[in-house]
């Protein structure tokens, strides 16, 4: 653990940590200009400490990336709801630290600081929260921490009460890839919120990833995949509906982020996943919280039309990335004027070939990612056209079918994947 690096923990932070001493539960919240959302989150954490962890030594650590909107002051100034304080007596001193993080700008550096502080304070359980969330309640913290504290899990992934037609980047791309590659069915492999143990965070800190650019935008998936590949005891915890001020935008930046991250993770864990076959579910700890969100309103037909018109311009770019069979399939979809459909098998093949191309670096990586965007929109448009108004159970069945297709077709990935050291 590199706590001795002067750039990682400032003298002020170390002095504050001396006062805190050992903690049982640490909640970390990275921020960057989150003044509009941070106070309810701090209040929720504070209430969670009082309600659910009255005996534990707790710390709320805010790692700020240089906010210009007074976010750290908002963190310090947030006070718990008076009725909660009255109803739930606090046994211990409440500790709340806000500190700037140093190093590369991005979530990876913030998370590294959180985990380093957790390691230094010997935290037994850590929960990391996203400052963008507007629906976070004290129960989220309890749900993420309790499996670690009381059931000895090392990593707790969240389950959001979301409609199955929502979060298509996850359901169409990241979730099935993780399922097929790592052999575990994780509902939210991209989640910004998670819980973890001292053992797992120690393992994470030992990995030589923190100074890479990838860690700044792909750390969420790396955390999940590292827990799975490292043989840690993993589970999932229902949290309830999740809404954020910055919703997922399935555009180029996000696609780029995920394709790069997925490749990076697969490259990191090749020795683990190439041997895996099939998949198993992660246990769910805790009762569902809240009701499922409404189905999002999305225009699948428009996305499909966009795909059909864009494909012609992309063929030159696509040919070094995907095989002839895949390209032919894509052309066939685009050529259909009535109800074009992007089948599971073709989507799986497309994704795998993109991952391999990206892994091999057949062209500039950002160009590869950019090329996937219209294909992803085509797939999403097709899925929405087919299932957009279907009942949730039917959508779930379709997503399960997609997951199985990724598993069945995994040799397409493993057969062409060259371990990083052999390239």
């Amino acid at each position: 653990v590199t706590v001795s690096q002067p750039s990682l923990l400032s003298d002020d932070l170390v002095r504050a940590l001396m006062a805190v001493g050992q903690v049982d539960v640490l909640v970390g919240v990275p921020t960057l200009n989150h003044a509009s959302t941070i106070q309810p989150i701090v209040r929720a954490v504070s209430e969670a400490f009082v309600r659910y962890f009255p005996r534990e030594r707790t710390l709320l650590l805010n790692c700020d990336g240089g906010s210009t909107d007074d976010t750290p002051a908002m963190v310090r100034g947030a006070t718990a709801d008076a009725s909660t304080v009255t109803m739930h007596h606090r046994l211990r001193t409440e500790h709340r630290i806000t500190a700037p993080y140093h190093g590369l700008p991005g979530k990876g550096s913030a998370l590294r600081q959180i985990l380093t502080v957790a390691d230094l304070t010997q935290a037994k359980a850590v929960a990391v929260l996203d400052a963008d969330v507007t629906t976070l309640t004290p129960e989220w913290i309890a749900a993420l921490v309790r499996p670690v504290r009381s059931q000895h899990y090392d990593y707790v992934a969240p389950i959001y009460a979301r409609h199955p037609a929502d979060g298509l980047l996850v359901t169409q791309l990241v979730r099935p890839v993780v399922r097929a590659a790592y052999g575990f069915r994780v509902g939210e492999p991209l989640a910004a919120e998670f819980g973890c143990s001292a053992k797992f965070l120690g393992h994470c800190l030992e990995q030589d990833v923190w100074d890479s650019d990838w860690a700044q935008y792909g750390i969420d998936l790396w955390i999940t995949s590292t827990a799975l590949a490292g043989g840690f005891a993993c589970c999932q915890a229902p949290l309830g509906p999740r809404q954020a001020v910055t919703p997922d935008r399935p555009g180029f930046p996000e696609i780029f982020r995920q394709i790069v991250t997925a490749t990076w993770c697969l490259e990191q864990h090749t020795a683990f996943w190439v041997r895996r076959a099939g998949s198993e579910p992660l246990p769910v700890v805790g009762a569902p919280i809240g009701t499922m969100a409404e189905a999002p309103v999305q225009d699948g037909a428009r996305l499909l039309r966009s795909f059909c018109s864009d494909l012609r311009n992309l063929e030159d770019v696509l040919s070094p990335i995907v095989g002839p069979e895949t390209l032919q399939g894509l052309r066939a979809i685009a050529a259909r004027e009535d109800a074009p459909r992007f089948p599971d098998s073709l989507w799986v093949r497309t994704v795998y070939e993109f991952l391999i191309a990206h892994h091999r670096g057949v062209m500039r990586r950002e160009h590869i990612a950019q090329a996937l965007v219209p294909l992803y929109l085509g797939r999403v448009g097709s899925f929405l056209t087919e299932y957009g108004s279907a009942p949730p159970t039917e959508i779930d069945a379709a997503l399960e079918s997609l997951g199985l297709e990724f598993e069945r077709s995994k040799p397409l990935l493993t057969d062409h994947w060259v371990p990083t050291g052999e390239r």
Partner: protein
Amino acid sequence: MTIDPLWYKDAIIYQLHVKTFADSDGDGIGDFKGLTGRLDYIRDLGVDCLWLLPMYPSPFRDDGYDIADYCAIHPSYGTLEDFREFLEAAHARGLKVITELVLNHTSDQHQWFREARRSRDDPRRDWYVWSDTDDKYAGVRIIFVDTERSNWTWDPVSRQYYWHRFFSHQPDLNYDNPAVREEIWRVMEFWLNLGVDGFRVDAVPYLIEREGTSCENLPETHDVLKFLRRRLNESYSGRMLLAEANQWPEEVRHYFGDADEFHMAFHFPLMPRMFMALRLEDRKPLVDIVERTPPIPESCQWGVFLRNHDELTLEMVTDVERDYMYDEYASDPAARINVGIRRRLAPLLEGDRKRIELMNGLLMSMPGSPVIYYGDEIGMGDNIYLGDRNGVRTPMQWNGGWNAGFSTADPERLAQPLISNPLYGYQSVNVDAQRRFDHSLLSWMTRLIKVRRSTRVFSRGSITFLYPANHRVLAFLRTLDREQVLVVCNLSGTAQAVELDLRALAGALPIEMFGRSVFPRIGELPYMLTLGPHHFFWFRLRRV
């Protein structure tokens, strides 16, 4: 020699049970002659006031708190003449003596109750609280929840229910009856005329009953207490009344009145919070309760304690705090009784010398007059399997010989069995052994008391908490006029560093009070201290 009428404000009180302190006649029961023979020990410890548990004739169904005659000495303890001699000997050594005054109830064997229950027309009938039904004062809490199901008990003799807040064999006196007040005053006069210096008044919140109330802390109860205090003031000076009112500080505050009720009252909620702060390694509970404590009249004083003859009461804590205390200090269910924990100080702290020292250091530096429970100064153990609270009332351990030097009787005949286990037994924990060494707990306690008594700042000074960022460090200033003492305690079992903001004291020179070592002068920068596990400092701040 002139006696300071506010002597109790500076007192260090030693609480003991005559029955288990020293037996002079070999009958297995402690007595006043035995106690008189041990007064030098008590004086040498450095305390200056004795508080005696009930010494009256009693059927002993509540260890003497069930009094059968208020104006006599239990024959097992000796005679009134023995008591007089004891009192004279104590006074000769500069030791004040306060005795128990159980106001709220008598034994059902007391003559008053025997007469009262004879018939409904008996003149004594109205000295107690009677009812044809057991539904009056519904909802009033039951104190001894482990043994009693109701505050009413049916009297088959006079065919009515009688009221009792404690055990069913302890009927409550009826203080609405002026004759009862007068008679209780005559009891007080009796002992005051013998020379006792005050009374620890038992169970004061419960004297009066009123429908629709909790029957606790009622204004009429305060009227009774003001009556007794007025009578005391009229005829006696330099005497003291100490209230046992297990209530929140703001409630207890009323028992001081306008300095016209009690001179002293125990601070019950502080006690469990000292233990809580230690186990949590967090000053918060302790600071919270002291800050919640209202100011009291200038002539009044709090009584502070770590342990006493009762259970470590957990009535004045929240449910969360009570659960925590049970889990941390009474994992063995046998250690729990009523709403508390029946353990002595040393076993509560697992015999850890550092924690015992820290807790006594806290006790001696908190605002109030500290009370030491007999035997805790040598780290005596307990026996939670003896029933009721008898496990913390075992014979004083004077030496490693026959019956620990307590009695020459056959061991089987002792009033209470001795503690004899290898950890806390009298063979290893006793006065004689600890007298031999400067580093023993007894020697340390003697030094602690001496240092405490070297200044009145602890007994009469104000308290101001400092709030260093390190919550494991409790730091406060005690101030009396120009004198200041800085107390810094590490509540944690690991070494701690702390930065204190002492800019307001810039220029002062801290002198550690036990070794008189001079520490660096206080300046404008944060004052850095490091403390070993459970270590504490008392600094006298001097401007040289």
